């Protein structure tokens, strides 16, 4: 931990939010402490943002959208910043990996992949699409010629889960910014550190002030405020089915758009004619990667009777051979971590 703090940027020790291009304390001055699920020790001091901070962040994002350069730039210009961020993510991939492993306990070998080259690939992919937004042209029944335009929505709120913090925010931040929107990001209470780091990288890459704001905080207050806020045009959420339903209900008064990626109970079928060794490995990793705290976990395994006992016996042996260990030094195998809250999908 001391090694991490001494090596990393000052972001995680500040206990501050990132709003309108500046690091700032929570309006009510609160901080909370993250916990390393590996050993229960204190992780970092983080600003405990509230509805008041969401309000300030939405206003900043609103100004950045209504008056700022970001939605008025060409897609080519926005792409340059997204590409720069992808490079910075790879440069600081080790730190991003350690922040998430510290916060949620996924083995470092996995966060190194997810938070480095894979996250960078997501940003690069959407950088490529930033310059490809296009409409169409139409004839009409009347005397007019018609064309269509694709325009950014405005302010997007992102509410992201603990189980893959960098990746599941990249899936929202990258396309939202590529299209010219501005954002307020509320990361999961237990995994705020990498979100702050990503905001810092965007600032370093030259993202205009107010385009990406990050409000950390505890409880449902900040997220609920974001969902109900009339200045927010869309909410993108990954998490549990129950919270997704609450978000959809909470969005009704302001008729905002909502994206929901929710839970699963995915079935994996193994027929007797399968390549059994591979199938068993897929069944094990598909279920136990990141301790099963993955929305796509193959948690229902359907096995045809002629090979049923063989498959179950092999999985039991595989499970018994898997010994949990320190995620900071763990280089392979699947995680066996649990954060105290397991409500995300």
């Amino acid at each position, binding site marked *: 931990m001391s090694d991490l703090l001494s090596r990393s940027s000052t972001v995680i020790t500040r206990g501050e939010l990132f709003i309108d291009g500046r690091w700032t304390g929570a309006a009510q001055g609160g901080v909370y402490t993250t916990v390393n699920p590996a050993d229960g020790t204190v992780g970092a001091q983080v600003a405990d943002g509230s509805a008041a901070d969401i309000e300030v962040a939405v206003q900043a994002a609103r100004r950045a959208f209504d008056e700022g350069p970001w939605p008025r730039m060409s897609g080519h210009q926005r792409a340059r910043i997204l590409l720069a961020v992808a490079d910075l993510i790879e440069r600081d991939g080790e730190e991003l990996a350690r922040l998430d492993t510290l916060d949620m306990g996924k083995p470092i070998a996995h966060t190194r992949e997810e938070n480095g080259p894979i996250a960078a690939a997501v940003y690069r992919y959407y950088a490529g699409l930033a310059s490809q937004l296009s409409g169409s042209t139409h004839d009409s029944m009347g005397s*007019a010629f018609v064309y269509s335009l694709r325009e950014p929505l405005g302010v997007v709120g992102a509410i992201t889960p603990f189980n893959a913090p960098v990746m599941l925010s990249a899936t929202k931040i990258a*396309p939202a910014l590529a299209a010219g929107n501005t954002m307020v990001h509320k990361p999961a209470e237990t995994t705020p550190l990498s979100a702050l780091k990503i905001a810092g990288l965007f600032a370093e890459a030259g993202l205009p002030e107010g385009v990406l704001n990050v409000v950390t905080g505890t409880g449902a207050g900040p997220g609920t405020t974001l969902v109900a806020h009339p200045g927010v045009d869309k909410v993108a959420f990954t998490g549990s089915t129950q919270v997704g339903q609450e978000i959809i209900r909470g969005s009704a008064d302001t008729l905002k758009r909502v994206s929901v990626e929710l839970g699963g109970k995915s079935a994996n079928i193994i027929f007797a004619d399968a390549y059994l060794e591979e199938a068993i490995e897929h069944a094990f990793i598909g279920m136990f990667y990141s301790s*099963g*705290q993955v929305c796509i976990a193959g948690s229902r395994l359907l*096995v045809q009777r002629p090979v049923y006992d063989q498959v179950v016996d092999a999985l039991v042996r595989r499970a018994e051979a898997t010994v949990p260990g320190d995620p900071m030094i763990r280089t392979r195998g699947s995680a066996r971590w649990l954060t105290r809250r397991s409500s995300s999908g």
Partner: protein
Amino acid sequence: MSEYVRIGRLEGAELVAGGRTHHPQGPDSGWYYLPTIFSNARNDMRIAQDEIFGPVLTVIPFDTDDEAVALANGTRFGLASAVHTRDIKRAHSVAAAMRAGTCWINTYSQWDPGVSFGGRNASGYSREFGPEVMNSYTELKSVWVELPTG
């Protein structure tokens, strides 16, 4: 986690691996749960229907293709699915029958930023990844231009 292990046992599934916490760094340190497997479960059990979001695998036997598809689709969720077989016809017919946003054939967990990902039913209705996502972050505006007539 422990509650679901208790429920699974009460429901009559056979606990064949795990089912308990683990403390590699001392009894009061860390939050770990061993990889847990229930065998000979039924699809109507809560351990087969609830998203536990932890390391609990529920294994269910089947006999026929139709039965496998019915079991796979017998859920309120619809995020992902997989089929393992050497029979190409069976693989594609099962993939077509899956009510889920993704079906993997002879693999699992693969993805790409360019390939649509998402669910249906209780897994939500949105998609991430892929070019179509840009539509969900943009508004479509139609502009009418009167042309000179005659």
